[in-house]
């Protein structure tokens, strides 16, 4: 597959207020602002622009190695990037998850929940997942509320080699089964 075909391979998902599409260099600055802030403390930050650029490359490379990955989430009304959300399964993860990072200034609108629900549907419908989790770092109350709003329940704890202790939140299955 060519680079342009890869961009076409990343599906575009739509929700009422949001579009989920391929990540590109265009998304570097909002990600750099987010990762430079204290809000990134639960997802490996804060980090400098250099590390953020590598993180952007990592997100895109995940698509190449796994065939799926997280999306750039854009606000339809403004065209602005509001988050990096979608299926995520790097080596060392306990199992595939739906992950969400909300960019600075877009909290409190329900965007993470709206985009993550579309990503969860996509994982069940298009990727054939039969179960899905989300990992929430200890103390990340905002993220835990998103998981709960999506209907996920605490499943167990998991200790990552670099990120430490996290809660495994398990979503309802494809047919709504627990």
């Amino acid at each position: 597959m060519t680079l342009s075909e890869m961009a076409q391979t990343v599906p575009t998902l739509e929700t009422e207020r949001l579009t989920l599409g391929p990540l590109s260099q265009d998304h570097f600055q909002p990600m750099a602002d987010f990762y430079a802030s204290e809000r990134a403390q639960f997802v490996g930050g804060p980090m400098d622009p250099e590390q953020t650029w590598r993180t952007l490359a990592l997100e895109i490379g995940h698509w190449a190695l796994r065939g799926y990955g997280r999306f750039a989430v854009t606000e339809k009304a403004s065209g602005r990037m509001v988050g990096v959300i979608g299926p995520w399964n790097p080596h060392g993860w306990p199992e595939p998850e739906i992950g969400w990072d909300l960019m600075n200034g877009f909290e409190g609108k329900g965007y993470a929940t709206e985009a993550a629900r579309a990503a969860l549907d996509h994982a069940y419908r298009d990727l054939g997942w039969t179960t899905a989790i989300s990992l929430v770092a200890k103390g990340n109350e905002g993220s835990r509320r998103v998981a709960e709003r999506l209907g996920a329940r605490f499943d167990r704890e998991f200790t990552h080699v670099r990120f430490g202790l996290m809660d495994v939140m398990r979503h309802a299955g494809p047919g709504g089964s627990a």
Partner: protein
Amino acid sequence: MNALATSVAPPMPVLDIPVLETPRMLLRAPTVDDFPAEVAFYASDRSRGVGGPYPIETVWRKMCERLGQWVLRGYGLWSMQMKDTGAYAGRVGIFHPHDWPGPELGWAVMADAEGKGLAFEAAQIVRRHVYQTHGWTRLISVIDPDNARSIALAERLGCTREPDWEQPTEGMVTIWLHPQPEGQA
């Protein structure tokens, strides 16, 4: 598939990374098949010159980063594959993350492929290719000051030393300027 992958992957997309040929190697797109050798490399002291040693999960992320750079920049690193045995010998190509002092020609050779001049052979082909493809007139290599083998290779490639650079996470590194396109070996 290798046993180290955490889950069954769907058919893997391959980026439009050109295949280059050297007398003894094919330079091709990285794949998950290269992962076990990369894990062994980054578990060893041989990786000290390139930021290691790293745990397995970080090696996987580094592979993703290198693939993602192909999408973000349109160029990147190739895997070196021996023509005769098919074995993975290492990687060579252009490393150019954000805030880097320009496109860098980099290389890393696996332990059992060392001492055969493979990095020299591959680096010459890559250098010719990127000069022709991208029209660059400036190409550098960034080398840890303790990495004597890589410094020797840079000199063999005709590089000249430039002022050192204080890299924020890796500390002081040496900068080597490659010959211009018309002056290369």
